[in-house]
């Protein structure tokens, strides 16, 4: 590069980089769009419940289920190249059907309305297929958050790989929600929406929900690909 280009070198490299990105299809298959990170919010449990399994509807040996619309939540944790991520721990947490979180700052003052049978938090570690599954309730709105949502984290090897949340596709509250609106890119908004589909022939009104999580970086790589 001649000295003539030096003052504009940054812009030149930037343009070159952009060109490389958009022509990536010529050299490699287009990478999957990563699931965007979103705020953790204030209620990641400060005191972990004794029962942290992937069934949030029943706590330990209790036979009394949580209030709410039972939802079978499944999905896969994937790398940007589409390959499944093994040994990733997916954690989810959400408020109960009465809009109370499992966090002393929320369930403390709202103890009277809290659904004591809702586990509030669960985790699941993926196998070689990258699949995860939970049984939980369909999320409900929370004061200040008209968009019902489920928080999640993905961890591997003791590192936090992603913190985010997903919301209900088509819920009218989304359009009034600050976090949803804060997702500037319209495609990113799609990536944090999930469909809650009624399970055919379910006598108890169950739903199913599938939500794939695509990590922006391969957990085993240090550098960006």
């Amino acid at each position, binding site marked *: 590069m001649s000295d003539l280009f030096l003052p504009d070198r940054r812009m030149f490299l930037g343009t070159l980089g952009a060109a490389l990105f958009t022509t990536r299809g010529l050299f490699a298959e287009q990478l999957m769009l990563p699931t965007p990170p979103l705020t953790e919010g204030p209620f990641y449990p400060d005191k972990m419940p004794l029962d942290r399994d992937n069934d949030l509807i029943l706590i330990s040996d209790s036979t009394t289920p949580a209030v709410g619309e039972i939802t079978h939540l499944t999905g896969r944790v994937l790398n940007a190249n589409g390959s499944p991520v093994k040994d990733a721990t997916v954690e989810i947490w959400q408020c109960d059907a009465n809009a109370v979180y499992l966090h002393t700052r929320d369930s403390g003052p709202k103890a009277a309305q809290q659904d004591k049978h809702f586990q509030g938090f669960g985790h699941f570690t993926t196998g070689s297929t990258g699949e995860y599954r939970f049984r939980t309730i369909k999320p409900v*709105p929370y*004061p200040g958050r008209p968009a019902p949502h489920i928080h999640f984290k993905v961890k591997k090897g003791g590192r936090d790989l992603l913190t985010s949340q997903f919301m209900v596709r088509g819920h009218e509250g989304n359009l009034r929600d600050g976090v949803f609106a804060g997702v500037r890119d319209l495609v990113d908004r799609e990536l944090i929406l999930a469909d809650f589909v009624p399970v055919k022939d379910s006598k108890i009104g169950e739903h199913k929900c599938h939500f794939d999580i695509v990590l922006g970086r391969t957990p085993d790589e240090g550098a960006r690909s």
Partner: protein
Amino acid sequence: MLRRFLMAGGVLTCAAAALVAQPPGPPPRGGGSGGSVDGSIERLMAFDANKDGKLSKEELNDERLTALFERVDANKDGSVTKEELTVQLTKEAAALGANRGGGPGGPGFGGPGFGGPGGFVPPAPGTILPQFLQDELRLSDEQKKQLSDLQKEVDTKLAQILNREQRQQLNEMGNRGPRGPGGNRPPEDGFRQRRPPQ
């Protein structure tokens, strides 16, 4: 003397030009900004492997984007053109802006603001110290109790100051759009309504 003056003028002009010639900053805020629609279109068109200006279902085979694909494919011919994308995304960006009351009313009210990155939700009118500030300040339990009592007082007194129509107006500003289906009604109102413990 004149030459020095001219040189100084020249330097100042160059400096001013350099300031003006800064690379553009982040796209303007506000719902429905053209910037984010263009960015989204670019990200999707990157999947146009054969560069025919259209996205087929095979090219955009990410099942997470199926719902978007079907919304955008206006003529249902199994492919999405850049034009169809522009139309639909612009519409959706505008809808989000309208619903959240762009303009001095600002983003929706209703309870403490959690707001994601760039998505700050201002606290409801009458909130003394929104939740996130209480967290930041690390209020003690005693302080929180005193604040809570003070808030109750403020809520009551404010309700007495405003007349019924004004309270309703405040409600409506905080809750644009139809109410959700029955069942789990969000406990929050535009006007701070405290739900008493049951």
